[in-house]
């Protein structure tokens, strides 16, 4: 999963340690000694999601995925494996795709978050979302938001990918209904429709 650069295992462990382990192992004394310590009680987090400032009050151990889904009603990102192996919870963190189940909400403060809801609406689909609809690049649709977000990130990085590059870009997303070829078709179709001038570096 080369694409998921937004948060490392190390930062995850660090924050989780501060939020949960420190409170149980070191106790309140250690918390008082460090002003950066959060929790264990809910804390207010200032998030920027789809261009809007949102506040969630959650225990510091709450993942970004659960904060989005259970506290902001942004349920496009799906809870499927909860260990970073399916890509269904992919969101963009400062433009980079990340597995939101592997990241704490507290670590997303001060970052730009984009979820699938922020990429388009049913009335105003993004070109990639429209291509998904036309190509029938979904069956049950549960993995689809993850594919849309990963595909969007891919096209921003590489506006005119080859089929092999599309497969690489979607390698972290699992579909159980077996829709991959039509997802590839949709990504290539959206790429073909994009004017060459809109290429980004």
């Amino acid at each position: 999963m080369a694409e998921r650069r937004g948060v490392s295992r190390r930062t995850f462990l660090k924050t989780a340690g501060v939020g949960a382990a420190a409170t149980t192992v070191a106790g309140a004394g250690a918390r008082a000694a460090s002003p950066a310590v959060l929790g264990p009680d809910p804390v207010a987090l200032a998030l920027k999601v789809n261009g809007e400032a949102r506040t969630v009050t959650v225990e510091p151990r709450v993942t970004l995925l659960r904060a989005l889904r259970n506290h902001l009603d942004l349920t496009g990102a799906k809870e499927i494996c909860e260990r970073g192996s399916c890509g269904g919870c992919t969101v963009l963190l400062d433009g980079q795709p990340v597995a939101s189940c592997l990241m704490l909400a507290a670590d997303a403060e001060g970052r730009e978050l984009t979820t699938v809801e922020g990429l388009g609406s049913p009335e105003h689909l993004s070109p990639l979302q429209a291509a998904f609809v036309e190509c029938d690049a979904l069956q049950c649709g549960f993995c689809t938001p993850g594919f849309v977000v990963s595909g969007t990130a891919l096209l921003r990085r590489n506006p005119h990918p080859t089929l092999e590059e599309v497969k690489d870009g979607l390698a972290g997303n699992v579909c159980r209904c077996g829709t991959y070829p039509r997802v590839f078709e949709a990504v290539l179709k959206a790429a073909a429709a994009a004017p060459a001038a809109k290429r980004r570096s």
Partner: protein
Amino acid sequence: MAEQEKPPAPAPPTQTFTVKAGHASAPHTMEVHAAEGDIAPWDLDSRLRLVKGRHPRLEAPLKVTGRAKYTYDIGLPGMLWARMVRAPLPAAEIVAIDTSRAQALPGVKAVWTTESRKVRFQGQDIAAVAAVSPEVAEDAARLIKVTYDERPYVTDLKKAMEDGAPLVYDTGELPADADESLKKTRRSGNVVGPRERRNGLRGDVDAGLLAADVRVEATYEVPVHTHVPLETHGVIARWEGDQLTIWASTQGVGTVQEGMAEYLGIDRKNVTVITEHMGGGFGSKLHPSAEGSAFAGICCKLAKQAGAPVKLMLHRQEQHLCAGNAPSALMTLRLGAKKDGTLTGVHFRSFGSAGIADGAGSGGPASALYGDCPNLKIEEHDVFTNAGPAAPLRAPGHPQGAFGLESAMDELAHALGMDPLELRRKNETSPVRRIQYDVGAAAIGWARRNRVPGQAEGAPPGSRPAGRLRGLGMANGNWYVFARGAGVFAEVKIHRDGSVELFQGSQDIGTGLRTALAIVVAEELGIAVRDVTVRIGDTRFPAGVSSGGSNTTNSVAPAVRLAAHEALQKLKADTGLTQITSLKQAAARMKGEMISATAERKKQYETYRGDLAGTQFVEVEVDADTGTVRVVKMVAVNDCGFPINALTAESQVIGAMIQGVSWALFENRVMDRNVGTMVNPNIESYKVLGAKDMFEAVPILTEIANAGNNTSAAGLGEPCLVPTLAAVANAVFNATGVRIRELPLTPDKVLAGLRRRA
């Protein structure tokens, strides 16, 4: 699953329709006897504007933007979150369950514990909690202390068959839901069988095999697969007085309604079940809860106890352990044929494990394919193991059984020195599959296969396989036309402003049912597909079916078509119009505000074929150095009657090929032999096929005007998975000359085979 409709006996008033049935290349005129009030079926002469076309899913814009609310996504005011505690051991007596610490945890609102004292598999329901957040529920679950007295267990199929193996059920005990057939079948240790089955015996198989010029005998193995629907099983339960509303991730809202009413001892009329969108089931969500868990009922009890709505979604690990799997199969095949390939005997003997349940039969393909062979014997055995009970998984038992039968047919062709496709043609009984052979062989380029397996064209004879080896294989599959002939209803409303609504209870499990039904209404009313609002997945709507056996479209669409037809007739009568060219203009002239017609599906009648034919061709590339098998291209040719929506029908076929290749190459439920628990209850080491494993998938629908109902739809979701496992294994043989009889086709087995061959 619905019962297969028997040919109708002479019965109440019928009307006779003459139908141009079959395939366009070979039309077959037949008479059918439909119930009074039914309308003539669409056939080869019907000029259809929308049906069989390519229509994007109506709900797709909601799904690609993350707006579609699945059960997993629904939150209610004041809702609590549940978490279950499951048995960590494969066999034990429960000595004590202490929930005191969990109950004392702030935020915990309800606790449930099992009354059962016996654990028979890892993942069994033990306890559950409902709390103010998923995090607190998880904490509380961890605080529940269960004391177990461990017992001997057996999780391996072959070990379970041995004399003296630990007994999953003591003598005299049987699964709680054992049916009459299981009760009366001979049982020895953990093995039950041979099971009684229909169409499992013809002639004298030993005599048939004796009369053969060429015989093959081999044993094939398929491991247990799990369903891995991406939306796990789960429900949200809300009580308002005695009214219970359940949002469920299910393949059957009616099944959940019935099951929960029974579990809770309340009237069905007080239970509403809703499934607006559903994230995959593949057969595992046909149970009111799950085969290995009563989670839905437990959730309803927690909600009652807490006085608040409760959401209980299984975690991924639980999904693998208790929410169903596909049984394993250990199959011994004996086939015999004359020199010209005519089969003289087919003997299929299988043992399979559905864990603590039965249902591991895999003789379907052997029973149904090559029906002209005069001598057939099928013996199926269930073997109990300490593992979660199986659930139907896309054509239950058939991909496994076809792997055995169609691998053996390939071996027989090789032994006869015959083209494997010619051997199939020689014994074929279906006119549809005969057409499919030509179509499929052309699409894959069957002539490119290695004449000598493992020997590429131009390579020196007898040279060692090296580098990347290509090969082609094929295999057949079968399925049945299942359809409900009554008790399925649909309501169509035409409003005065010309807007149209369809109400139908069945749920769309990802097959595209919602769109297919809109197409049927639009076709009948002469309007556009997008102009039909489809309201489905709700027990308050006219009764539908559980989506199992590939029966949904052909059970529901005929009722929908009839309702649309009747609504149009009513509109004509109401407005005095004899011809309607614009529904909107006609509707504006109606006397009231709305016209509504509810129709019941009429009986199923004569079909062109009662079976669904399918054949698949595949090209693989095997790396002789690493043993890695890669599928290059697969062609699936399938009959589904009339595809109501060719676009989504093709998606289903593509999906079946992918799921089948995933089973063939990767999937395997691994049990730890030392502790009896599942090693890989996740999505990374229970490997499912991903983007980088993808191949060129070519779905070809054989359109058959099948009659049987007024839409000629027949069913598709399951049959297209049946041939895949064998087709891939046969292609690996053609590429390498190595016959692998045990799935998955992992590099170690390929390399071992190549070494043996060298």
